[in-house]
């Protein structure tokens, strides 16, 4: 059957691997990378506790902090992309057809280009002696580096820059279906521009907003490039921590446990995303 190859490929090289990773998280780590035979829930314990010299468990929030930071950064990135993306989508939808098409295309181009390069480009701007600092030095406003790079700010900026197209596109899609007659009707009823947006536009394109938020949140949560390029590896996010376990730290079971945690969070997000999409279909 024609379906076979696609389904089998994804099943064999994605579904089974995730399952295997889950199994790995319950096995002892091999200090040379990989796992040893046997059963162990050490990796899951490690999420919360540290083993003291006498083998007693001490609560250790260091990993939870990283997970917490990932969530906070993802939420902030989502809020920022929404705050910026909504007006932009609103602007695009009001343009004449030709211009609308062009602007949309301009929004999509960065989405299809390499994230690595786009993050790197920000180093040129934010970095020491970058496009921001240099003129400030020249004007004598600052005399030492602003240290814009390698912090939460730079990571957050990278997340927003990476994923804002995914906020604009679904919002645009729902705005486009909006009946502009409704807006005119509202204006006709003496509603001010602001209240038209609040009372009519936002409620009607809520599915698009929710879809955009979930997409940006899920992708930001699992983002690897912004923290490792713009965070300089100092401020880790969940992905960096995972990647670290599979490389230098050689603790695959712990990496597996972290991945499972990420997958659960993303799974919840995706569940809501599909629900929202389903609702949208129903409305149609």
């Amino acid at each position, binding site marked *: 059957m*024609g*379906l*076979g*190859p*696609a*389904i089998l490929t*994804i*099943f064999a*090289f*994605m*579904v*089974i*691997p*995730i399952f*295997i*990773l889950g199994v*790995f998280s319950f096995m002892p780590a091999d200090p040379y*990378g*990989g796992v040893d035979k046997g059963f162990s829930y050490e990796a899951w314990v490690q999420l919360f506790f540290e083993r003291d010299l006498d083998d007693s468990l001490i609560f250790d929030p260091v990993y939870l902090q990283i997970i917490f930071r990932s969530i906070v950064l993802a939420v902030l990135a989502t809020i920022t992309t929404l705050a*910026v993306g909504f*007006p*932009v989508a609103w*602007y*695009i939808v009001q343009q004449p057809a030709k211009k609308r098409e062009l602007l949309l*295309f*301009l929004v999509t181009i*960065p989405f299809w*280009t*390499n994230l*690595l*390069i*786009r993050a*790197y*480009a*920000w*180093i*040129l*701007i934010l*970095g020491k*002696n*970058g*496009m921001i600092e240099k003129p400030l030095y020249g004007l004598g406003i600052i005399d030492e580096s602003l240290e814009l790079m390698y912090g939460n700010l730079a990571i957050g900026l990278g997340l927003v*820059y990476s994923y*804002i197209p995914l906020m604009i596109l679904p919002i645009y899609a729902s705005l486009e279906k909006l009946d502009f007659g409704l807006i005119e009707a509202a204006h006709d009823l003496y509603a001010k521009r602001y209240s038209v947006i609040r009372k009519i536009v936002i409620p009607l394109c809520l599915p698009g907003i929710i879809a955009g938020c979930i997409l940006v949140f*899920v*992708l930001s*949560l*699992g983002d*690897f*490039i912004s923290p490792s390029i713009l965070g300089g590896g100092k401020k880790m996010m969940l*992905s960096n921590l*995972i*990647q670290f376990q*599979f490389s230098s730290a050689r603790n695959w079971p712990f990496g*597996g446990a972290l*991945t499972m945690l*990420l*997958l659960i969070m*993303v799974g919840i997000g*995706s569940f809501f995303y599909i629900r929202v999409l389903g609702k949208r279909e129903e409305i149609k």
Partner: protein
Amino acid sequence: MKNLSSKRKSINWLKIFSNTFFVYLYAPIAVLIIYSFNDNRIAQVWTAFSTKWYLKAFNNEDIQRAIINSLKVAGVATIVATLFATMAALVLSSKRFRGHGISNAIISLPLLVPEIATAVATLSFFAAIEFPLGLTSIIIAHIVFCIPFAFMPIRARLSGMDQTLQEAGRDLYANEWQVFWHVTFPLLKPGILAGAILSFIISIDDFIISLMVAGAGATTLPLYIYSMIRLGVSPEINAVSTVLFCISVTAIIAYWLVSKQNEEKVHVH
């Protein structure tokens, strides 16, 4: 009328905001490209126009190898993923059957799983079955996540296709195979092309998954760029990045043109 004229006088904040946004979206890329033509070795200090970093990059054997690896991976992954996706789309669009929904879900799974999870899961899998890491392992991983990207435009094209065209073919003495060859396939071709372009873009840009499943000597272009970035800012990175950026943009423009043509051709009336 009054409303209109007063609107014209007041400052259009929305427009200013949006234009600023587009500047924000493209300024970093513009800076990257401009400084790739900078003669100065210190990337942020502009001295004169020069293409020497491009020449230098292209004469770098490691970069040459990385580009060739990237093209090999993207080429093979694109062909296989597009073939698989086309076959799946043809089945999924023809009739509803048991397992229809679950098949669709499995095909879109790679879109939902975060890349880092895919990366480490694939790595664990290859370790578990003791599959050697190298170009082959990268290609397999790429095929997996390229399938849904190839699938989407093909599926869209098929569902927009007038089913009676196939019936017209059968009515006019073409058997199943001839109908596929003379009617379905020619009409599907732009969709297949669009799917292949998306696969190619996604594959050539991939970084994290390649990072985890690449063995020694299987460095792709994004992996090479990453290793350079870790050493610090340099005009050579700008040049290589610009090249990669141009490949993506060329492909996305090609995709756009193809899908525009799609829209025009499906509907006769």
